[in-house]
């Protein structure tokens, strides 16, 4: 009986669409509710995915494709609004328009400005990029939208796709599950929250100019990377986490003790929760595993680090362990006292908690989207995909990656002048006899 009640409550809380006299509007999902308060000129919360084609983008075709794509994703065609207690999404009359891909990626766009959607599509030469604010969705939602856009674009260019697979297209029914709040749907009452973490070490380097975000692109042949990971009974993500952790350990060693703001190297690894729970949601549904190491304990060889990361991930990358985060986050959102606090006060505390209980406990993050696939008719026209992490003023240098066909693409986004992390990371991968190609279009906007 109790289980039935909880299930009913979960379903009720998972609904994000509300229909009233003005039509449909949406509430924010549990991961998104903190985002509007913490997003600013530097901490834009915007991550980016791009595809590079084998020909210059045809403007007209892409604009038509975009207009059709957004029809399939009405829950993305929204603007952010303030309520008295919570933010909400108001359906927008604005039709997304292609923008020139100039300046720093993921910068210079405010979701608080009236008329602005929470994503934008930018093109330059052969490349089309979608930049999404995390308030709207996570990497899964963004890559789905990009795939829809590409299929529709190629259709405009005269390339029909017979079997579109999992790509969502206009005309297909829009399921309510696509915009459900899966955190609330799969919330478990009566389980404890995650354990507290010590203060993390942060890179000690001068910040770049306010609106500058340096992105370093690289690509790595997938097979040697997979081979190395298999030899060490680890996953590709675990090898990359180990390399990133080592880079930060070295940075920690170089930092004078008085200038270290913490001694815990905490690497956040986002986890797609869709693999644990059945949902079709294209809103946020990712949490994270935190891999921590205190460098004061001693020295680790790289192989030991890979093993350490592998073991931590094996324990932590488990539905029961990650469910504690849902219990804390969704449970907090359901608390009647929290709900009754006016938004202006919530915003203040969100900024405070994000800084003290969020970013100060994380050294860096690395997000691996996994393998991207496209229908074969258009796959041959796409040279590469790139995935750029959202800029962060606290964690400063972070990485995102994905694989496309037989290549692994990794991008570092940094808000600091120092390139020591990128340098150490790629040197380490190269030292494993895995070729690393730093792409020349490293951007500093």
């Amino acid at each position, binding site marked *: 009986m109790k289980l039935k009640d909880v299930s009913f409550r979960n379903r009720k809380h998972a609904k994000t669409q*509300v229909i*009233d*006299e*003005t039509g449909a*509007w949406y*509430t924010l999902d549990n991961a998104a509710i903190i985002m509007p308060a913490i997003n600013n000129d530097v901490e834009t919360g915007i991550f980016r995915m791009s595809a590079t084609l084998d*020909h*210059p*983008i*045809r*403007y*007209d075709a892409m*604009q038509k494709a975009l207009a059709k794509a957004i029809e399939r994703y009405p829950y993305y065609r929204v603007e952010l*609004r*303030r*309520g*008295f*207690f*919570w933010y*909400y999404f*108001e359906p927008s009359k604005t039709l997304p328009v*292609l*923008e*020139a*891909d*100039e300046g720093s990626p993921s910068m210079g766009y405010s979701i608080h400005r009236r008329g602005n959607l929470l994503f934008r599509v930018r*093109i*330059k*030469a*052969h490349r089309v990029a979608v930049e999404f604010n995390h308030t709207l969705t996570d990497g899964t939602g963004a890559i789905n939208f990009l795939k829809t856009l590409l299929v529709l674009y190629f259709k405009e260019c005269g390339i029909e796709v017979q079997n579109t697979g999992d790509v969502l297209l206009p005309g297909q029914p829009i399921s309510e599950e696509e915009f459900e709040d899966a955190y609330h749907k799969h919330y478990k009452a009566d389980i404890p929250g995650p354990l507290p973490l010590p203060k993390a070490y942060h890179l000690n380097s001068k910040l770049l100019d306010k609106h500058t975000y340096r992105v370093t692109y690289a690509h790595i042949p997938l097979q040697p990377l997979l081979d190395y990971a298999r030899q060490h009974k680890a996953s590709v993500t675990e090898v990359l986490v180990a390399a990133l952790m080592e880079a930060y350990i070295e940075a920690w060693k170089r930092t004078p003790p008085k200038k270290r703001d913490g001694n815990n190297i905490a690497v956040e690894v986002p986890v797609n929760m869709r693999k644990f729970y059945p949902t079709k949601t294209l809103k946020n549904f990712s949490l994270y595993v935190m891999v921590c190491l205190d460098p004061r304990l001693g020295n680790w060889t790289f192989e030991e680090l890979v093993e350490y990361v592998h073991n931590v991930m094996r324990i932590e990358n488990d539905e029961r362990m990650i469910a504690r985060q849902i219990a804390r986050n969704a449970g907090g959102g359901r608390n009647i006292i929290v*709900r*009754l606090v006016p938004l202006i006060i919530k915003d203040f505390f969100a900024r405070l908690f994000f800084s003290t209980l969020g970013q100060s406990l994380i050294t860096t993050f690395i997000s691996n989207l996994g393998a991207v696939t496209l229908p074969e008719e258009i796959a041959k026209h796409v040279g590469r995909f790139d995935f750029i992490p959202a800029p962060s003023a606290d964690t400063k240098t972070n990485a995102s990656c994905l694989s496309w066909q037989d290549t692994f693409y990794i991008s570092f986004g940094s808000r600091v002048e120092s390139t020591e992390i990128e340098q150490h990371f790629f040197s380490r991968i190269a030292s494993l006899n895995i070729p690393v190609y730093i792409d020349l279009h490293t951007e500093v906007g």
Partner: protein
Amino acid sequence: MALCKTCGVDIGDAAICPLCHKPVNSSEASEHHEVEPKQKQVPLSNERRLQIFEVISVSILIAAAAVSIVNVVIEGKLSWAWYPLFSLILIWTLSTTSVILPKKPWLVALIDIIGLSGFLYALDVLTGPVVWFFRLALPMMIGLLVAIAVVLLAYTLAKRKGLNIIGWILLAIAEFCIAIEASILMYTNSPFKLFWSSIVASSLIPVALFLFYIHYRIAKSVTLRKLFHL
């Protein structure tokens, strides 16, 4: 097919790129933008400000000299002329601070309050032993200072200025009225029970709150359900 030289995208038959708005076939156009000079408001130059300051100062000096001479000619010394002289000094202070300190509203407000307090103190001294300045005028001036500070602070911090500023002004008036009545009660040694100022405040505060509400919350598509969803 036409490639934009700046963006590198195919813009079909268009003559101007819809992204960068530059002509397709003009490489020079992509390098040089002709921007029409915008007409902008020219702020007062220092020279102009000094000129205004000088005109005000000379005018007040002439008035001060006139009342002083008349007073001395009739009575043989300065007596009643002190009242208009202190008033003229106050007028000079109030009218010139914003001219010579154009971008420093906080400093202007502070100097004006000090000037007004000085004027009241001078009046108290002129009318006999100092009795009402410290117990009546000074608390009122502090109340005024707080009211002005509230409005200035709200104006400085507000990202969008409109009805919200009027709301803050109403709140400041309410605060000032309370300060006036409290000062009078203190001066007359009456029991501290606010009467008329509480009526003023209870009228102004709801209006101010309503203005804030309108300013920050109301838009065409807003419903109560959206505003107050929990």
